[in-house]
Structures are given as C-alpha cells and as structure tokens.
C-alpha cells in the first residue's frame, strides 16, 4: 500500500507542478491549437485558384477578351501598357499575357504551375467551337473527395507532433530541473522507490494526454471539419501507446543530462529527425524510396501513420499493426534503458 501511496503522491505533484507553469500550458494546449487554426484556415479551401490573364492591345483584342471571359477559371483584363503587363508577369500578379494576332501569342513563365494552368485554360477557350457540337476528346467527371485537403493530411501529423513534443519536453525538463536543483538527491536519501519515481512521470503524462487529445481532436473535428473515420477505442489506444512511448523516450534522452540546457540540446537532437522525416507537414513518401523502410521505423512516423490510417482511411487494422508494434518497441526499450542509465547522483 505504501508503494501505491507514493506513486499517487508523486504523480499528483507532477500534475500540480505542470499546471502551475503557465508557459508550459501554452506550449502544450494553446500552441497546437493556434497552429492548427492558422494552417487550417489558410488551406481550408481546396481547389485551384483562377488564372489572371492580361490581353495586350492589338487587332481583335476586344473580341479576344470577350472570348476568354466566357471560359471559367479566368480573370481577364485589357492591359494597354505592355511594360506593366511584363512587370505583372515577373512579379506573379499575372499568370499569362496574351498578344492578339493570328495566331495569338501566349507569354508565361513555364516554371510556374500557375502559368501552365493558365495556358491550358486559355487554349481551351481559344479552341474553335464547331457548330453542331463536336464531341470533345475526353469527358471530365468531377469527384468530391473529402479528406483530401491539406489540413486533413496535416491534422493527424500535428496531433502526433504534439504527443511527441509534450511527452519529451515535459518529462525531459522536469528531470533535468530536479537534477540541477538537487531535489533528486534529496529524494534519494528517502526510501522512495526509484521505479515508482519514474513511473509517476508516465502516469502524470496520461492525465494530460486525455485533455490534450480531447481538446485538439474536438477542434479538428468541429472547427476544421477534419474527417474521423476510425473507431474511438483504436484511436485511444494509439494515442495512449504513442504518449507513453514518447514519455519513455524523453526519460531515456535525458537519463544522464545534468542541466536544463543539456536537456534542451539532447531533446532537440532527438526530435529534429522526427520533425523532418516523419511526415508531419509533408508526406515522407517524398523522400527517396530507399529511405522509406527506415523512416517508418522512427517513432513519430509510426504514430503519424497510425493516426492517419485511423482518421483519414478508417483503417483500424493498418493502424494497430506495424506502427503500433514499432511504438511499443520504442517505448519498452527506451524506458528499460532509462532505468538502467538514469543518473541518480
């Protein structure tokens, strides 16, 4: 019973210390919401923007403008000043400039996707319409794909990154502070159980996990309209395993550091490859294929893969398979290593 009481008391203290640091609360709860909100609203509208086209003066310019205006997706203006049109093209204010003639000349920057889109739209408008309705070469079928917006891809990644960041920072910093301020030594001259001490970090992490995930996911679902296609128990399991795994990793990374500065350096070093390689902001599939198996072994990649499989594809089996196994392995190994390596003195 004595053990249960000390684990409880240690956990309670961790929770109290955590909520009494306003700046920590900001980084854990407010920051990811702000980030999700900003990115969410910036990328909320899908689709391709209209192309901005200028028509230079010349024979048949008026008619050309009228033709182009009938085509969807084009914003057309008559620009009598050729110099201004050239400047607009260079600065990105215009996507394409048309000089009237037989045939008309299209001026654009072929490096910019917007230019290419504008060219195709203008060509479609200029295509001679055959009386009687000639069959088109192909028929376009529009499909409404929900869950294909950037924010839908991004959101599970943000959630994963938050689980990683909070787990590692909150634990790593707390440990380093206890060590630097010599509180750890004071605890060591009591009969406190060392495993109980380390376990209390994992437990206190779970208290915040529930709030953190609930707040972020509700925001994603209701405000950003991010799809959620998996089952809640599977989602809870993935979040739990992810959080505990990163808490273990945080303990491991800071098992031997003596100062807060040292902890900061080690934590950044450990998290850097994950920010870059784990597909938070863009898919890791953009890296050479050779690297994919390696990237999938990184804990944050595993967590993001599992979260995306659940939220975007509703694929519970994929989420609970390899990614979960990888997370469990990271958690168990790092917690075990932390117990062995931990610098008590």
């Amino acid at each position: 019973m004595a053990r249960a009481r000390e684990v409880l008391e240690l956990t309670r203290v961790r929770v109290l210390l955590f909520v009494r640091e306003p700046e920590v609360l900001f980084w854990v709860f407010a920051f990811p919401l702000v980030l999700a909100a900003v990115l969410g609203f910036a990328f909320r509208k899908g689709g391709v923007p209209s192309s901005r086209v200028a028509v230079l003066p010349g024979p048949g310019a008026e008619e050309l403008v009228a033709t182009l205006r009938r085509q969807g997706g084009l914003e057309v203006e008559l620009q009598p000043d050729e110099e201004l049109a050239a400047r607009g093209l260079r600065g990105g204010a215009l996507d394409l400039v048309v000089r009237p003639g037989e045939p008309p000349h299209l001026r654009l920057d072929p490096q910019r996707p917007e230019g290419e889109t504008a060219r195709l739209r203008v060509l479609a408008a200029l295509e001679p319409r055959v009386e009687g309705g000639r069959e088109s070469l192909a028929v376009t079928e529009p499909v409404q794909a929900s869950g294909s917006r950037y924010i839908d891809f991004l959101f599970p990644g943000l959630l994963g990154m938050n689980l990683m960041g909070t787990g590692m920072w909150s634990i790593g910093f707390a440990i380093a502070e206890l060590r630097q301020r010599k509180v750890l030594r004071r605890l060591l001259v009591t009969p406190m159980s060392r495993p109980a001490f380390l376990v209390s970090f994992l437990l206190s992490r779970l208290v915040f996990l529930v709030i953190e995930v609930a707040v972020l996911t509700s925001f994603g679902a209701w405000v950003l309209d991010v799809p959620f296609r998996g089952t809640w128990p599977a989602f809870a399991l993935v979040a739990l395993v992810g959080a505990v795994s990163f808490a273990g990793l945080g303990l491991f990374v800071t098992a031997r550091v003596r100062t807060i500065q040292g902890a900061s350096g080690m934590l950044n070093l450990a998290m850097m490859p994950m920010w870059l390689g784990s597909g938070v902001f863009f898919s890791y599939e953009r890296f050479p294929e050779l690297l994919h198996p390696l990237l999938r072994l990184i804990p944050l990649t595993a967590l993001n893969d599992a979260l995306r499989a659940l939220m975007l594809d509703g694929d519970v089996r994929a989420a609970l398979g390899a990614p979960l196994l990888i997370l469990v392995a990271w958690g168990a190994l790092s917690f075990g290593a932390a117990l062995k390596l931990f610098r008590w003195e």
Partner: protein
Amino acid sequence: MAADDGMAVRARGLVKRYGALVAVDGVDLEVERGTCLGLLGPNGAGKTTTIEMLEGLKRPDLGQITILGLEWGRSDRLIRERIGVQLQETDLLAKLTVTETLRLFGSFYRAPRGLAEVLDLVGLEEKRGARVDALSGGQKQRLALGCALVNRPEVLFLDEPTTGLDPQARRHVWEVIDQFKEQGGSVLLTTHYMEEAERLSDRVVIVDHGRVIAQGTPKAVIDALGAEHIVELRPHAADGQPAPELVDDDTLRLLPGVREVSRDDGAIRLAVSDTQAALGALLGLLRERGLVVEDLRTHRPTLEDVFVALTGKHLRDG
C-alpha cells in the same frame, strides 16, 4: 549485520578520492545515541563529502560505515526509513505549497508523522498553504527540517543547516534541533559557525584537508589548546603606520606564558596560558621596540581559536 552497540553512527577509516584529489583521507567518527556531533571545518575540508557518505549518497572508496548498526549496501531501505536528512543547498520544489511538500515526503515512509504534527514541530502552521518560493530563507530551512523529521527519524543529518540565515532565523532552527535532541534523537551536524557548534554539539570533530585534526567535547578541545586567554593586538610604529612585522614570531613565542603565535591580516594572535605574565612581558617588548599598541583585546578561547591555532586559517575562510 554489525552489533548494535549504542552508536547511532560509526565510521572507520573513510577515504574518498576524486581523481588525484583526496577529499576525505581516513576519517573516523562516532555519534553516540542521543547526542549531537558537530563536524567542523572550513569549506573544502571534506565535511560534506563525509556526511554524504554517511547518508548513503556517496560510496566511500575505503572504510566502513554503520548507521544504527546497519550497513549501506545491505539494509539501505531500512536505514533510510530511520534517518532524516537535510542536504546543503537543496531547493525544494518551488511551486509546491508547504503542505504538498510535506505530504510528498511523508508518502515515502511506512509510518510518517501527521501533517499537523510536523507543521507544529517546525513552526510553519501559518505558512501551510504558502508556496515554497514565497517562503523566507529561514522558513525554507525549517520546511527542509520538516521534511527530514517527517518519518520520526532516530538520526538526523544536517549539512550546514543555518548557512545564510540571519541570527533570529538561525535560533529558530536551533530550537527545532534542540527539541529533536530532547526527545532522544541523535544528530550529526556540519557547520562552519563556531557558535552553532558550541551551542548544539555534545562532541565536535574538527577536520581540515580531509583529516581529523582534533576531537572531543567542545570544552576538552578548547582546553587542549592550553590557553587561558587569546590576546589579539595590532602594533603600530611611532608614525602611526601598522608595523606587525617589527616583532617576529620567535621572539613572541619566548615571552613567558605564550603558547601559540599566529598572524591574521596585520593582527598578531597569542594563545596564552598565564595572561597576566604574558601581557606584562608583551607590553614591555613593544615599548622596547618603540611600537604603539592599538586595538588590544583578550577573550576566552573558542573553537574558532582552536582551529586558527591548529591550521592558521579561519573556519569561515574559503
């Protein structure tokens, strides 16, 4: 398990090296049950290393330690249940309240004292809801004592418990320690305040450079100096300039009644066994050399004087 021979703490031949530096070089000490042992010495003398070995925080390179008849490495948990420790310069958790801190420490022990009892013991009832970072230095120190007393320890280890406190706060801490002793507790205390050592200790051990250089009751250690009084003076030349170098140690040592001579920042200190004879001869000598005496003082010897006589340094020196 060693026989429980009535010793709260027993250490034999403790040695601790840090690379080439020998921090503790063969220290023996004993704390009888129900008594207080003061471990004295300047900073860097090996006091903290010694007490941390006794507390089980550091492992000695050589030597044996028994605490209440128990040995570190065999009965760690049992020992920790029965000792209380106040470390030098520990910050407690700044954002916890007094009550939360005591509850946390209490949770580590099988049979902790009640919260009210500890608060009463260290006089922090009125501060029970205050955060640690809002406490004064003295209150923090008493909270640290409260954490050390929460398990009704039989032995209390205190590493410089009043360093940096004002006299009133210091007396407050002493009262808590007195109370602990009255109830039969044993104390091992390090300090570089002589007044503190003389006030609290039944016996003292003076260490310098990791070795014991004197030990016994404070009175016995002072008596061993063989001095009735300590005479301090600053001789000046006729022009008013300080001129302590105009009399050498050997001449002074030959004066009747003088036992020891030491110098300290322009002052000459004499440990004298016959104050009257020594003073007369001293003043005669100075007059002979054309020196004027300013600032002549005598006082009964203290532990500080013992230390200065043995090492030529003050306890408070770095």
